[in-house]
Structures are given as structure tokens and as C-alpha cells.
């Protein structure tokens, strides 16, 4: 074929290209020889034995973005599961004297120089009363008058400068030529390190109680993944069954079931979840106190909010899934094999279980996979609202919302969980897109 310098419109072109016509001249007589038997039958020979699953895997493997995302996901799982074993700090462990550490540190000598310089500058700052007098004198010289508000402001600024130093730490650091190093160490850690001990740094810094943010991000990733996966499982079971029944039965049953879907869709989910977490919270605590068993043991472990979040997911989030499955079932139920099964006396439950649902498997897998990121999304949103995961357990969303309070002074506390959260959702989305392309080429987007 000729070169492809000119963009071809995606619908193909009917015009011949000059290059193609010229290329005809280069054909040799050999090209016009009648095809022999191996060549003639080659296109007819069936390709490599390809099951649906193997075909899908081949297509998925060809999708570099999806493969990369899968690798990132595996790394994140490793980070979340194995990470806390490596880091010697607990996620709920307070470290006195290590509060508000940034994710970097200075060498011990530098740290001392920096502190000396800062305190020197603080002392050099003018006394508040002096500053007021000076400002008054300046104003008089210009022929202006200062209001009481102006004076109060000048006094407050001078006082602030005296206590903190008139310049920021970053500025002094730059002037002294001190370079920050990776990982946060408290003063005590630095001294121990200088004495030759091996001290594990707070790579992401610490929060205001001195908890190590790296470990908290790892545990948060764990919780967020757990929420995403279990919510998707719930949605899968409820949504697929509801949609299949609604679509298969049709008629009045379908109409009623679809009205219910519409009502659920019209109630703001925040309302339901906020209310449910209050109602369920008390009920769950009472249950955990009086019963034993798996659920009762799970309550104190996961916290009541997390469990009510799962339940809300089960109650609310299957709507999209059920709509998609219903549409599929509506298309499939007119097919001959369904009629044949019915003629053989199969019950509705059997037809749905054995014939209809397996034929929607592509849609089901894809929708479930894309449900995971949206569940993680919602969990982080709820934690942001303050009804998500309860302390001391944490999730990426609650880490981010905690960080919002100190955003101006400690932006890295927001950035670390936000980056991990976004990477995780992005990877799930990419894997979901890849699966959709692989499992159902007709849906290729």
C-alpha cells in the first residue's frame, strides 16, 4: 500500500490514490499465477482453537494501557497488604515529639543552624509598641492619620513576627543553603541516627498526633480496596438477579420493578446513607453486644459506618447494573435456545441461571469492574462528609478530608492519599475499559 501521510477519514475513502495506481505497475507476472492448493485452502483452515476466554485474554493482552493498569493495581495491592509489615510503625500509634513532621528532614547540624537563625531573627523583630510608634511617626511625616484598626493591625503583625520569626522557614533555609533530605525524622530520631542507630524515616511525614502517614496511607488503601471490591460483589449479585428477573418476566412485573428502580434512583443517596448509618449504627452495636458469630465480630473490627456503607451499597447501587442486565435479557429472551429450553419444561429460575445470565457474562464482568472505582469514589466522598470509616481505622478518603483542615500548612498530607486514590481509581477504570474491549468487541469504545 502507498504511504499513509494523508489522513484517511475513519469511514474509508472511495477515491483511488495515485500511489496505489502507480504501484500496480510494479506487479510481476508471478503475482498473477493461479493460487495453488495450499494457498487456496489457507483462508478456509480454522484459526487456532480459540475459546471465548482465550480470545478475550488475547485481546486484553494487546491493550497496553489495561496491562499497565493491572500492574499498577498489583503494586497497590502489595503496597497495601505487605507495606505495613515492612514499616515498623502502627497506623494508630502516636509518636510523642514527632508531630507534624514534613516528609523531609535536615541533617542534625543544619537543623541546629536553622533553629538558631530563626530564633535570632525572631529576637531581632521589633517590639510591638516600638513598631506602632514608628508607624505613627511615619504617618505624621506623610501627613496622614492612622485609625485604631490600623494600629491594632500593626501591633498584631509585630507580635506575630516576634513569636515566629519575620521570615518563613523556607526562606531562611534557602539563604543558609541548607538542603532538605528525603524522609521525615523527629529531633530524637536524628540524635539516635547520629549515634549510629538505624531509624526508619517517616517517608510521608506525620500528622498532628505524630502518626506515620505512610502506614496510614497503606491501611487506607487496604480499606478503600475492601470497600470497592465488596460493594462491587453486592451490586453484582443483587443487580444481576433483579435485572434478569425484571427483564425475563416482562409485562406488569417488569413495570412495577422498573418503577421501584426509578424511585430508588430519585432519592438522593447521601440522604439514605446518612440516615442508614445512624439507624444501623445503633442496631449493629446492640447486635454485636448480644450475639456472637462472624457478623458480630466484624462490627468492632470494621466499625459501624463501614458496615452500614456496605448495606447502603446493597440497597442503592445495583440500579445501574439491573438496568443494563435487563436490557440484555430483553434482547436475549427472544432467542431460540430460550424458547427451546422453555419447551423442554425448564423453569424460569433455571432459564435465568443457566441460559440468560451466562450469556450476559461480558456485560456483567465489565459493569462490576467499573463499579469498583465508583464505590471507592463514594466511600471517599462519605469519609469526606464525616460518616465514613471511623477512627482509628482510616481510608484514603478520610485521610484526605483530615488533611483539608491543615491544607495551607501541610499540603503533602492531602497530596499523598489523593495521588494513591486517583491512581487506584484510574487503574480500575483502565482495567474495566480493557475488559470491556476484550470481552465484548462490539462495545469497543
Amino acid at each position: 500500500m502507498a504511504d499513509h501521510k494523508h489522513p484517511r477519514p475513519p469511514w474509508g475513502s472511495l477515491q483511488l490514490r495515485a500511489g496505489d495506481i502507480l504501484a500496480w505497475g510494479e506487479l510481476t507476472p508471478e503475482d498473477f499465477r493461479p493460487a495453488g492448493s495450499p494457498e487456496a485452502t489457507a483462508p478456509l483452515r480454522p484459526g487456532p482453537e480459540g475459546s471465548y476466554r482465550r480470545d478475550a485474554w488475547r485481546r486484553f493482552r494487546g491493550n497496553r494501557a489495561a496491562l499497565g493498569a493491572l500492574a499498577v493495581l498489583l503494586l497497590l495491592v502489595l503496597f497495601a497488604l505487605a507495606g505495613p509489615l515492612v514499616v515498623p510503625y502502627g497506623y494508630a500509634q502516636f509518636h510523642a515529639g514527632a508531630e507534624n513532621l514534613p516528609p523531609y528532614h535536615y541533617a542534625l547540624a543544619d537543623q541546629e543552624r536553622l533553629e538558631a537563625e530563626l530564633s535570632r531573627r525572631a529576637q531581632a523583630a521589633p517590639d510591638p509598641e516600638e513598631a506602632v510608634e514608628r508607624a505613627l511617626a511615619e504617618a505624621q511625616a506623610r501627613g496622614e492619620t492612622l485609625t485604631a484598626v490600623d494600629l491594632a493591625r500593626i501591633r498584631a503583625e509585630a507580635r506575630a513576627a516576634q513569636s515566629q520569626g519575620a521570615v518563613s522557614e523556607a526562606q531562611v533555609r534557602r539563604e543558609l543553603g541548607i538542603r532538605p533530605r528525603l524522609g521525615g525524622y523527629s529531633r530524637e530520631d536524628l540524635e539516635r541516627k547520629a549515634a549510629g542507630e538505624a531509624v526508619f524515616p517517616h517517608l510521608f511525614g506525620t500528622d498532628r498526633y505524630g502518626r506515620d502517614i505512610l502506614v496510614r496511607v497503606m491501611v487506607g488503601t487496604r480499606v478503600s480496596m475492601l470497600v470497592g471490591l465488596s460493594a462491587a460483589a453486592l451490586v453484582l449479585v443483587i443487580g444481576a438477579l433483579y435485572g434478569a428477573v425484571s427483564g425475563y418476566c416482562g409485562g406488569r412485573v417488569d413495570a412495577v420493578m422498573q418503577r421501584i428502580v426509578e424511585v430508588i434512583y430519585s432519592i438522593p443517596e447521601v440522604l439514605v446513607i446518612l440516615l442508614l448509618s445512624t439507624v444501623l449504627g445503633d442496631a449493629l452495636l446492640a447486635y454485636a453486644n448480644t450475639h456472637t458469630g462472624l457478623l458480630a465480630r466484624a462490627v468492632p473490627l470494621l466499625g459501624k459506618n463501614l458496615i452500614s456503607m456496605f448495606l447502603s451499597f446493597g440497597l442503592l447501587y445495583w440500579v445501574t447494573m439491573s438496568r443494563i442486565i435487563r436490557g440484555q435479557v430483553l434482547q436475549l429472551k427472544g432467542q431460540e435456545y430460550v424458547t427451546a429450553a422453555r419447551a423442554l419444561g425448564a423453569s424460569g429460575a433455571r432459564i435465568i441461571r443457566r441460559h440468560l445470565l451466562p450469556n450476559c457474562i461480558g456485560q456483567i464482568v465489565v459493569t462490576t469492574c467499573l463499579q469498583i472505582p465508583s464505590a471507592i469514589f463514594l466511600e471517599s466522598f462519605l469519609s469526606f462528609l464525616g460518616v465514613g470509616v471511623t477512627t482509628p481505622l482510616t481510608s484514603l478518603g478520610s485521610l484526605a478530608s483530615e488533611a483539608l483542615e491543615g491544607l495551607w500548612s501541610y499540603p503533602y498530607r492531602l497530596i499523598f492519599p489523593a495521588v494513591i486514590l486517583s491512581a487506584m481509581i484510574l487503574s480500575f477504570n483502565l482495567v474495566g475499559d480493557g475488559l470491556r474491549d476484550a470481552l465484548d468487541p462490539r462495545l469497543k469504545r
Partner: protein
Amino acid sequence: MAREILKRIGTAALTVFAVATLTFFLTRAVPGNPFLSEKNPPQAVLDALNEKYGLDQPLYVQYVKYLGNLLRGDLGVSVKLQKDYPVARIIGEMFPVSAAIGFFALLWAVLLGVPLGCLAAYRRGRGTDSALQVVCTLGVSLPSFVVASLLLFAFCGGIAGWKLFPTLFQAGDWRSYVLPCFSLGFYPMCYIARQSRASMLDALGQDYIKTARAKGLRTGRILFKHALRNALLPVLTYLGPQVAFTLCGGFVVETVFTIPGLGRYFVQSISSRDYPVILGTTLFLASFLVGMNLLVDLLYQAVDPRIRLGREAA
């Protein structure tokens, strides 16, 4: 046709009624009371307050009364957040604030999202397409509070010399609207771009596009007259409910940028158990949502004459 529309309006009203009932009993099933607070008021005060707002009556009496008032268009008064202030007036004051931001957010989302999606579909498999795909997938993967708070940090003083916008929201000052509109519209923009790329690709593969090409129509005409019209349907489906949700305010964006909007107020009303406000705002959102869905159904016909109301495409 007119009968179909009437029937649709009937079921829509039924849906709103069901939402009202469900919300009413859901809020009352929750333990707690609007008047309980840290101060622990004496029982006599509680009784008096309950009596004043009719909360001492049996639940079914309250329910019937509420429905009766609702039919007359009376949403009741706030019992906690803004005592004795009519709920309808609260919505009337807060909705325009949220709606202004939501409107501009969706406006830029559609005006940029659809053309970008078309561009990506047209340049399928090339650099432009891949770059747009990356941006849009990232866009639907970033939670709104991350986008909003990072923007707030970057452009409201967190980075020296970049303080372009005010930190505190001021109604009427256009600079206060830029960041909220951007963060509220970013997710829909990326979603719309992805959706319109997908449906555009689907449309471009159809036979009628080849026919149009064979007739010798210009590329622009094929893209915008023939393909886009069909590609718009899924975007429309998405936009219907999204308009209702976005105009009623995004809680996160309103919290981060301290905007006195309906979304933030709604969440406050839930945590303070202000029953009339919860019900009023929920009903407002639900009717808006149901109305938008109805409108989208009608618009379908305008865009695609093959679709008829009442007949399911199955």
C-alpha cells in the same frame, strides 16, 4: 402522543409521591430529634417544642397532615437550622446560588466535552486521541474533593505568586465562580467527552455515513449533520439527571469553596434532623430529576424520530 405524555406525567407524579412517603418514614425511623443537643434541654422545653411543630402527634397523623400541606404547595417551616423560616423560601434563596454555579459548570462541560469527543473519534488511534483519552480517563478518576481542594490550594494562595482567585466565596464576584465551576464541571466534561467519542465512533461505522461519503458530502457536514446527531443520544441520557444533580449543588465543591448553596444546606439539614428541610429539599431534587427524565424522553424524539414514546426499544 398527548395521551402518552399525560401518562408519563402521571407516573412521574407517582414517583415523586413515593419518594415523599419513603423519605418521610425514613427520616422518622432514625433515632434522634431536632431539639436534642449538647445542652440537653429540660423535658418541658422539649415537649413544648414538639407540640409547637406537631411532632408529638402519632406518625400517621403527621404524615397525612404533611401530604395535605404538600398538595397546597406548603413545604412547612424549618424547625432547627433557621427556626420558623419557610422551607420554600430557603430553597428559593439557596437554589439560585447553586444553580448559577451548576449552570456554568455544565455549560463548559458540554461545550468542550462534545467537540473533544468528536475530535478524538475523528482522529482515532492517533496522538490527539490518545492524549484526550488519558486526560478524560484521569478526569473521571479524580474525586471532586481532590480536584477542588488542590485547585483551592494552588490558586488561592498556597503557591506564592499564584493567588489569582479569592479564598472566600462572594456572590456576584465573577472571580469567585471560576474555580467552583471548573471543579464541578471537570468530571462531567471528561465523562461527556468519553461518551461522545464512543457513540461518535459507533455512528461513524454505520452505513449511512458511507452513503453520505459516497454522495460526496464534505467532511464537516458528515461529521456534524449526520454522525453527531446520532451520537448525541447517549450524551442526552447522561445530561438529563446530571442537570438536576448539578444545579441542586455539589456538596463537596460547596464545602471546599464555602459557597452557601443548596447542596451543603441539604447535608447540614440531615445531620441536624431538620425534618421539613430534609423533605423539602429531597422532594425538590426528586421532582427536578423526574422532570428532567421526562424532558429527555421528549427530546429523544426531536433528535431521533424513530423513537416513539411508550414503545420500548427492546
